[in-house]
């Protein structure tokens, strides 16, 4: 650049050079220039309760015989039965927005139970359409839950606890995402036992807690 003899022009040239230098210095945004998509990168793991509940003796009797629910217990609070029921299904449905599963990956269902009934249990989750009753995908089945510990008289002494989880793969998720309801089926059955009589205390319960974990996809 030719040096000007006039001070005012020299200053103006200096000023221009400063502006030019500022303009030429990289703004550090080169790699940002061609962006056409913005995404969020992260793998937050989210857990939320799905269902909880307790099956008490009253509910159980309702399923055994809905017309005789008013049987009184004995003086010690026990009901006694012969082995009249081998298996008992307690179903319930609740609405579920299956489309939400399309935005989640690495999904796992967790269950935790406390079984104070002298009955074994299975818990089954069916993803269904509540109007057509169509079932999507194979049900999620939690393994056999042991009956409560009983003494030689067939009375419960200690509950059993179970904690388990089932991972749901992408194919299952695709199937389940079509559902608008979940049918939860709790199967209670008599264990193999030599006792002829089975006892239920008015305080015996089966309680469960089901929750879901997954990673949302952004």
């Amino acid at each position, binding site marked *: 650049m030719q040096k000007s003899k006039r001070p005012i022009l020299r200053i103006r040239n200096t000023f221009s050079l400063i502006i030019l230098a500022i303009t030429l210095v990289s703004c550090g945004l080169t790699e940002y220039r061609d962006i056409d998509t913005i995404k969020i990168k992260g793998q937050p793991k989210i857990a939320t309760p799905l269902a909880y509940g307790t099956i008490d003796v009253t509910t159980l009797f309702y399923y055994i015989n809905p017309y005789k629910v008013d049987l009184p217990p004995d003086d010690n609070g026990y009901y006694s039965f012969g082995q009249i029921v081998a298996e008992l299904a307690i179903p319930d449905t609740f*609405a*579920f927005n299956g489309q939400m599963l399309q935005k989640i990956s690495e999904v796992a269902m967790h269950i935790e139970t406390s079984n104070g009934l002298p009955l074994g249990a299975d818990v089954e989750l069916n993803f269904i359409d509540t109007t057509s009753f169509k079932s999507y995908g194979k049900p999620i089945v939690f393994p056999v839950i042991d009956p409560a510990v009983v003494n030689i008289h067939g009375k419960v002494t200690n509950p059993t606890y179970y904690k388990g989880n089932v991972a749901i793969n992408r194919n299952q998720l695709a199937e389940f995402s079509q559902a608008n309801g979940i049918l939860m089926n709790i199967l209670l059955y008599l264990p193999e036992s030599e006792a002829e009589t089975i006892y239920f205390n008015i305080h015996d319960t089966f309680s469960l807690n089901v929750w879901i974990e997954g990673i949302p996809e952004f």
Partner: protein
Amino acid sequence: MTMQQIRNTIATLLIIFLGISTMQAQENILYFMGNSPQSTHLNPAIINDQSKLTIGIPLLAGQSFSLNNSFTISEITTVNQNTLYIDLDKMNEKAEDKNHLWQRYTSNLADIQWRRENDRFSFSITGNQLLNGSFNKNIVELVSKGNVPLKGKPIQTNFDVNFIHYREFALGYSRNMSEKITLGGKVKFLSGLSAIDVQKMELTLETSNNVENIEINAEGNYRLSLPKSMRLENNKINNPFDYLTTTSNYGMAVDLGVNYYLNPKIELSVSIINLGFIRWKNEAKTVSHNGSFIWKGFDLSNMKNLIGYEKEPYSDPFQAFKDSVKELVNFNEVNNPFTSGIPTYVYFAAGYSISESFKAGVVDQIMVFDKQTRNSLTLSGNLNINRIASISAGYTIIDKSFANLSVGTAIKLGPVQLYLLTDNILAINVANSNTFNIRAGANLMFGKK
């Protein structure tokens, strides 16, 4: 606009907001910059120019924009194959216990200074807009990791947001009391346009160890003055003219300054700027909410559905969840005028004249606003070439940010003076900078003292 475009727009705004926002309007370099009438905005007793009459060109007298944030763009994003990823893990790594956002814009609508022997009078009209926010690390941790690793312990997140928009009308006077001492002051009449003052915004979330329940508490207390005229209708401000001429929120502030020459070479000065308040009356209200709910999932305790299909399924849990969230933010509004402060600055400065045209200076600025105090320190060298041009350069420490090089320059072409300055020239590397500010303007300068 498609959902994708909306999402991209929101994400872009989020990046800009998070990536380049500033903790305070620094501009310390202006303090000793030669030939700069705007120095009086930092200390009304400082006189750096020799003109008898200075008129800031309307709307061009001075535009100042400052941004600062705890994160830089490169710290929280990655780019891969034309896709910008906002990286939650990186954000979590960089997040401090308390993270802040600051943005300020000021616009000199009019600026006149007139000097008569040892007296100087000034009048200015300035528009001020400020957004100040902070949030704790917990919210970043929750978003980046989710609630699974945080089971069994309560996560408390809090936000603090302040927004004010006001106009100031300032009358100033300064006088050289002797060869050694100059005193100056300004009285400012403030007219508030809108304000949002989040006094409390807390969200606490606790996921129990075995995910039996999630407990959420939300508590908030907000003070607002948002005129109807500024609300959006069809994506446009309802009535911008009415908004800009709002006159029912009044306030007062003062600037005070003193400059003392210890000897002909060394000067010491101190000032306090914007010591004042605004009383918000126009559609002023206090909004509060306080609620909590525990989400346990579906209650299966009353299962009496023999067939399983016969009854209507439970109502949609997510709808129930939404309903519960609505309960959380069940707002209680009370019309209630309130008073808010404005950012107050205290400057301590010392200058040493090495020669007639070159002065070294050190300026410390303390800003107090919304129970927060922040500090910035600038060391500068200031070259003044006659009355035609001046160049200042310096180094600034802004809170915990140490990489800030300040530059400022002013050039006078006839009666027109143009000036431009920043306290962080490195901020032109936008992706790697978390502080940025710039001030530019034009004055008409006449006569000589």
